[in-house]
């Protein structure tokens, strides 16, 4: 019982500190960043393939 109580105190202290920031907000931010990176990669791939085809035409 005393051990569980100590474990609870430690866990509670850790979680109260760790969870100060809202993980849901960070998740949304990370997803947005991921989406942005994907779009940038796609845009880059499209523009380089366009450049490639223009070069071969020339």
């Amino acid at each position: 019982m005393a051990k569980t109580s100590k474990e609870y105190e430690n866990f509670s202290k850790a979680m109260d500190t760790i969870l100060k920031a809202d993980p849901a907000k960070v998740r949304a931010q990370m997803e947005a960043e991921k989406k942005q990176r994907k779009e940038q990669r796609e845009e880059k791939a499209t523009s380089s393939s366009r450049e490639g085809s223009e070069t071969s035409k020339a």
Partner: protein
Amino acid sequence: MAMFTAYFDASGHPVDGKVLTVAGFVSTVKKWARFEGEWNAILDSEGIKIFHMTDFVASHGEFSKGWKGQTDRRRLFIERLAACLKKNVNKSFRTTLLLDGYYAVNKAYEVQEMFGCPYALCCMICSFTLREWAARKGAERKLLYYFEDGDLGKGEFEMFHKAAYGAKPLFLEKARGVPLQAADFAGWKIRTSVQESIKSDHTLDKGIRLLESVAMLKTIPKTAGIISGKVLDRYCQHRRVKVRN
């Protein structure tokens, strides 16, 4: 002030298993360099390149020839590795999660949404206790810590770590970080001893054997915790974690 580095590894399967442990060690950069030389010399002396605890236990991989049933050779080898660890690390940090409890409380409350998946939760507690230790020593800005790369739940851990500390955690492959082999060794030892101790057929004899098997780790200063369903349930009630619909 010395520069500190810590290395962590997870042991156990977060879905099929009963117990998940994340364990690791912190030491100074100078002592880790010495550790690496000594650890690799022990492995070299036995013709081993990388120490994997699961291979050692099952006499697989690099341990498939000449290790099975060789009790004295095995004991001596583990004792040498443990002595090398004890000599070169400052402290051990480990968190063990009892998975049945986690999943039971997760059915009643939004545990995963709040605390993350089992791996993320254990890694976050280890990060927290390590950082607290560093803060007490005034070494927060002289601390780097790495987790072994490739575990299930890495993305969630990154998210929670970024939320709490403003940056993603660092990851390393086992082949690139010799101290990760020591973390693997400790994680396996702790997880299996907790796993055995919660089995219904646990006896005093078994308990003594388990204590003996982790005796070498017990001499290293530690911050260790076990998160049970009771602990999670109590926190959810006290902090009014959202009840699952």
